[in-house]
């Protein structure tokens, strides 16, 4: 069975600085999808960024980018120019190519310090 690990339960970053959240996963599949979701306090979970495993190029969405290392089964999220609104729980998620289910990591709580 696939597993997703986020080794940092909590992290903090100074406003305008850069922070990297770690995620590793375990799978025997070669085709799959990886996601980072953000859950602000008392607000809805939203997608931050996604990566298809067959794509070698790392995904980027504005200030958010990933470092996808397929061989190492690592999928880290980099947030540049951190803003107060980035404070949230961040979840890494995996979905295999054959099946509808996601596997979520335990989450990392990110605090942004003014």
């Amino acid at each position, binding site marked *: 069975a696939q597993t*997703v690990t*986020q080794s940092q*339960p909590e992290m903090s970053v100074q406003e305008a600085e850069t922070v990297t959240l770690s995620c590793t996963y375990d799978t025997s599949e070669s085709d799959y*999808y990886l*996601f980072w*979701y953000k859950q602000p306090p008392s*607000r*809805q*979970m*939203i*997608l931050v960024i*996604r990566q*298809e495993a067959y794509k070698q190029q790392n995904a980027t969405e504005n200030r958010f980018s990933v470092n996808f290392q397929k061989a190492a089964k690592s999928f880290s999220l980099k947030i540049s120019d951190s803003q107060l609104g980035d404070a949230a729980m961040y*979840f890494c*998620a995996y*979905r295999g190519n054959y099946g*509808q*289910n*996601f596997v*979520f*990591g*335990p*989450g990392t709580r990110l605090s942004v310090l003014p």
Partner: protein
Amino acid sequence: DVKVTQSSRYLVKRTGEKVFLECVQDMDHENMFWYRQDPGLGLRLIYFSYDVKMKEKGDIPEGYSVSREKKERFSLILESTSTNQTSMYLCASSSEAGGPYEQYFGPGTRLTVT
């Protein structure tokens, strides 16, 4: 924009009461999911449905049942609540058309069982 709504944001129930949580999505998605979210454990899948009247058990189905009579609606039923079912319940939906199959989440229902 995809919209996923849940019938209640907060619920307080006594042990043994029946609870009915409803989720509605407006994007004609085939797949719908129910998760519970607990600190340090991330999101754990209770049940999912890939079509009307179809359901599959997730990782923690014990004590729960589901119903999907219409494509847009997926209900989670707790027949006789217990205190260990105090949690945040999240509904999500996704499409199988194309990819990469991201899940869209509702705002969550925080259930407290006393």
